[in-house]
């Protein structure tokens, strides 16, 4: 596996966690989510987002509501469900654990 592939695998694993984190703060529609992620260099193209959002919604972690848009078709605003919140907490804890163990490993 090349370095690039390793990086993209790491990003992929974290993407779901990050999307949930963003939505925990406020409800958002996909371009908003993209904006925050682009700044964090986690995601490159918008197309990546739609299948993940649909899947998370189908798993019951997200819900959405329609909002009329000033320009263009109505937008889907996503928010976390209670299950989503619980899931995010779990993922957050797991992430902290990974972070500490990776830090320890790389320090030693």
């Amino acid at each position: 596996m090349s370095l690039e592939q390793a990086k993209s695998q790491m990003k992929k694993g974290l993407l779901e966690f990050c999307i949930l984190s963003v939505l925990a703060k406020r409800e958002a529609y996909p371009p908003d989510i993209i904006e925050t992620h682009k700044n964090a260099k986690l995601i490159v193209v918008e197309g990546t987002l739609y299948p993940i959002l649909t899947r998370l919604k189908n798993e019951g972690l997200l819900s959405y509501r329609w909002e009329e848009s000033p320009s263009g078709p109505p937008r889907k605003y996503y928010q976390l469900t209670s299950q989503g919140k619980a899931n995010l907490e779990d993922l957050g804890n797991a992430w902290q654990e990974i972070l500490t163990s990776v830090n320890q490993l790389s320090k030693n």
Partner: protein
Amino acid sequence: MNKTLTINISGIIFNIEEDAYEKLKNYISQIKSHFVNDSSCDEIMADIEARIAEMLQAKSNQNKQVLIISDIDSIINTMGRPDEFDDNASNQTNENKSSFSEGNNYTGYKKKRVYRNGEDKVVGGVCSGISMYFDIDPLWLRLAFGVSFLAFGSGLLFYILLWIVLPEAKTTAEKLEMRGEKVDINNIGKQVSEEFEKIKNKFETEAQDFKQNYGTKSRGAFGNFVNFFVEVVTKIAFAFAKFIGIFFIIFGLMLLVVFLSSIFGSSNIFHFSNGAQSISYSLKDLMVLLINNNSQRNLAIIGIFLTFCIPLIMLVYKGLRLILNIKYKNRVFGVIASILFLVGISIMVYLIADVANDFKKNGNSVDRFSFMPNGKVLTIQTNDKDYDFVDTQEEQDEDINSLKLGKWNYKINGNIISMSNIQFDIEKSTTDSFELLISRMAKGNTSKAAYARAESITYKFVQTDSTLTLPSTFESEIYNKWRGQKIRMKLKVPVGKTIFLANNSEQIIYDIKNVTNTLDSEMINRRWLMTNDGLSCVDCADITATTKQKRDRRSRDEYEEDIDLDF
């Protein structure tokens, strides 16, 4: 100025330039084929389209009402190409992709197909697509095609054919199929063994069924067995189809080159030979000889091309389809080919009827020459060198404008056709002088035309005191065409006169009657005295015996018949 289209994405209406529309349409269908196996494909597509609509809305405003290709490019940049969409969710839905990129987490092999590669093309993307299939550098194929264009354009035809046969890889799925798995020995081995396993398993289960059902439901089992047998045969036939395909292509292309070079060049394409009879000619020369005028000749070229080349092209086409396993049908191509073929046949029928019409009537122009040579013996000779020698000489020269139809030669030399259809016979004269009868004969659509054509034959013989020189060929202007022109000569020899048949006269003498029934080939190089009974050999004591024996061996009836003919 550009054509614009009106489209509707997620209920929003846009004006878009045609090329931008094509790009957008391709892009959306690529995304669609990327998600096609996903259970929530429709929802994802709706979301993506809504977003695209929103972005396009932002691009168009009061000042700029039409979307252009750069707008689409910027949207594709933001949204990303389907192969950049990689995430966990689409892993299981995107087997094509993963089987290509990782190559180990899939079961079963992905069939590779040939497409035209629109992304890397010089003319039609044919070479590029094929080189994808075989995993080679397209440069070599392009070079090969370039060179083959020079071979009377047959490569060009082949290229166009491929262009028609091969669909362009447009969707992602098609592009992946185009790249596919590398076709190498391992893969082929794998495929073969898998096929074999399948057949073996099938055979085993069928055999069990057959055993179980035998006796009770023998007819049903037998039916199953027949079905199975048919399936096996079909599989084998399918494998053979590829070989047949290769054969079609090679055979078709070879004949195409031969035909094209014969129509446009002048190479001899037919050379049938069975000893005495031999035919060898090029279509181009044959047309010069047969066909009336230039416009008809052009028509003939088209006719020949259509009648012979269209089936060959179809052969190559079928071969390609068989080899490349193309299911995509191009009905238009088949219909056009059939129409062109029928047009070709009609042209040929018309031309043949037209030429045949010119053979309806005979014309015969007879000239008589009386002479009394002073010499004791009249030598009859042609203007050629020794006959046997000429034959080999001709082969060495290999004159490309020489046609051979049966026994006769036709040579085109500038505006003159020279022909060798000459026969010479000897009879007893009723007077006491030599008399030479020359019939110039030809055919035409009317008797008048036939006669005029016969008259236009040029034939000059030379007579001296002791020789009669008869040229072995006669000439006619090329506009007279070949219309059965021939010369028949009869020399009437007075009783008591002697003639000598020179060696080189063999090619024109024909069935000369003589008292000993000696064959023409044995009559040459000898002196013959005209007697009241006919020609009698003066200096052939050595062969008379053998021919006499030959004659005696014949049946009595035949012998009597010969005698009848003699008198």
